[in-house]
């Protein structure tokens, strides 16, 4: 059963290779804008780039999880979700994981390369990596929730990001606080543990919340 779900998800993503490469390219594009603006001052870049990496990750996850349910809504897949007799929460859970795998994992894999490019110190890049691994699943889940909320809307403009970013801000605050603590030399375990508890809280609940939201949004 699980094998079948995983196979379907991988097939969906591999069929359209755009969905794998575009988030990564978008991430690099936005990230390269910052040194263009800030100039070549290495010290300034070293201080500012960890935060900018996080901002770019937020933009990337926002834009790639925005249209998660859009095609499904158009094709009527949502109704089959809700009338199926299998546990749809499991399918949604694996869909969230798959979305994370194909949009955030490439970014995370490239972080060592980026930290070499911008001369971010080793401890900083380790903490960036850790906060990203803990934080991006949360961001993806919340973004998918936003997509489920705005399911019925025809004009998909900038509405979903506007609604979702207030929920991103706590994750951003704790990650930035952890990165800052490491760069000063203070302990960072409290922020990491809060991020971990957020992840453990959000990720299991999200499939159930998504099912409820889909029922709400589809009911005409």
């Amino acid at each position, binding site marked *: 059963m699980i094998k079948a779900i995983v196979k379907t998800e991988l097939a969906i993503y591999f069929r359209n290779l755009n969905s794998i490469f575009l988030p990564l390219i978008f991430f690099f594009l936005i990230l390269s804008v910052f040194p263009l603006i800030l100039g070549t001052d290495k010290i300034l870049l070293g201080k500012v780039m960890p935060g900018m990496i996080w901002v770019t990750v937020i933009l990337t996850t926002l834009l790639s999880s925005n249209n998660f349910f859009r095609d499904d809504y158009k094709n009527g897949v949502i109704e089959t979700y809700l009338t199926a007799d299998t546990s749809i929460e499991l399918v949604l859970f694996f869909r969230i994981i798959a979305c994370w795998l194909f949009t955030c994992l490439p970014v995370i894999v490239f972080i060592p390369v980026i930290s070499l490019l911008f001369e971010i110190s080793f401890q900083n890049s380790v903490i960036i990596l850790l906060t990203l691994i803990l934080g991006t699943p949360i961001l993806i889940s919340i973004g998918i*929730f936003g997509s489920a*909320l*705005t399911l*019925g*809307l025809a*004009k998909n403009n900038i*509405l979903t990001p*506007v*609604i979702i*970013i*207030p*929920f991103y*801000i*706590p994750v951003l*605050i704790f990650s930035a606080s952890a990165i800052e603590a490491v760069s000063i030399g203070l302990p960072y375990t409290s922020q990491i543990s809060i991020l971990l508890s957020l992840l453990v809280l959000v990720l299991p609940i999200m499939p159930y*919340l998504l099912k*409820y*939201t889909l029922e*709400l*949004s589809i*009911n*005409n």
Partner: protein
Amino acid sequence: MNISKIANLRYFYTKTEKITVFLSFLSFLLFCIGVYWGLYIAPTDYLQGDSYRIMYVHVPAAWLSLQVYIIMALSGFIALVWKVKIMEIASIQCAPIGAFFTLIALITGMIWGKPTWGTYWVWDARLTSELILLFLYIGIIVLYSAFSDKRQAVKVTSLLAIIGIINIPIIHYSVEWWNTLHQGPTVTKFEKPSAHITMLLPLLYMLIAFNVYFLTVFIKRIRLGIYLREKNSKWMKEYLND
């Protein structure tokens, strides 16, 4: 009197016409007294001089911004679960009211911050989470207006409001959890209040005045919502014709 009759839209609309007039005058009166009390009668602070008087609008506005959000989330919850029509109207009408209160709290906080701390804004926990509250309110208003089917809109915005309620304890306890610039709790400390009673009393009075104002605007907005929903119904036409 059967309390559940209030949930009946027609009963609410017809019976509250006179009450709104009375409540408007009452809140205006309470405000005049409160502003005079806060600006003139309350004594000058030893440390902060007279700038602390901004507290008399800042603190009630901030308190009410949280309270209104809780009311919005609660009525949204009742609307989602029990599908009570008046709660659907009440829930979404709380959003602009709460947004205005949050705006007042933020702006007066900035104005108060300049003489007290030397800066208009600092990214500490309480200010940032209050700003997030404003964004939540705006998000709810924008999400509601994006739907053309308003029954559907209420369902979705109620869910958003309920999910966003996690922000409320963050705002309230942020001054205890994080060591920040904002002062600690003064009103709810029961052992030994750190502010003098002559300064505390007008604050409590202004809280009551703000709440009466909220009640007035809340009822007015619910009446507006009922009218927009029921304007083609028979009872509304009959009621407006006399």
